[in-house]
């Protein structure tokens, strides 16, 4: 059994399907869905539902060899679901997949991330060489460019 972490800042809906493919989601695994602080409650619930629907699709897809669902299909399925808890129970009962929702953990993680980033930044002097021009060998697909607060 493994745990797959879904960061809703970067993964939702059909993108989650791709993540499950890469990580090899199988029955018995756990899904840890992280909430981002800037996300409104309504958007958060919708994202959790879409991630769980994608997981359900994926687990059935693996069994039947079907194609990746389109976003429309996931949204259609959303109408048939009787709430997030029902979907969570369905994943548990049908595939033994535990869904862990990390609403509280997120603020804590944000704090410790900042500690890490500021701590690492102390390794450098103010006059370090500019490295922005150095050739990139491999971009990081998970990188989220920083934007100043509005």
């Amino acid at each position: 059994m493994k745990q797959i972490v879904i960061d809703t800042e970067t993964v939702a809906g059909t993108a989650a399907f791709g993540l499950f493919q890469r990580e090899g989601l199988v029955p018995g695994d756990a899904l840890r869905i992280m909430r981002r602080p800037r996300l409104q409650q309504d958007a958060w619930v919708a994202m959790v539902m879409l991630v769980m629907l994608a997981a359900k699709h994926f687990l059935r897809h693996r069994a039947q060899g079907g194609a990746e669902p389109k976003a429309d299909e996931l949204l259609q399925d959303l109408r048939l679901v009787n709430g997030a808890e029902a979907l969570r129970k369905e994943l548990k009962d049908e595939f033994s997949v535990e869904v862990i929702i990390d609403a509280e953990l997120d603020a804590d993680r944000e704090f410790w991330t900042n500690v890490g980033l500021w701590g690492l930044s102390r390794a450098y002097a103010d006059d370090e060489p500019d490295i922005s021009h150095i050739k990139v060998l491999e971009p990081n697909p998970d990188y989220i460019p920083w934007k100043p607060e509005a």
Partner: protein
Amino acid sequence: MEAGSVVRAALPQADSLRKLRPAILIASFPPFGDWFVVGISSHVELAVPDLDVVIDPGHSSYSTTGLSYPGVVRLGFAHIIPKKHIEAVIGSVDGATLKSIKLRFTGHILKA
């Protein structure tokens, strides 16, 4: 992206902006896949004897880091950062250098 990669990390500054800084990936940690990293500063004079690793033109990894200047790997400022703050891989250090950094870490911890 793997242990031993030299990456550009987007780090905060006092002026509220971010700056890209070179760092070496040491190990990835569950459950989030965050990376334990060490920074490479150009200020080699700050190297702590028997702890920090200086990568200068005589070093086996000098030509592969992607940096065009000598640097000191500052182990005392190592931290764990999420993947999303790592922009890209720009180079690497060889297996012997990575092992040496790890051994200096563990050696320092074990003797403390």
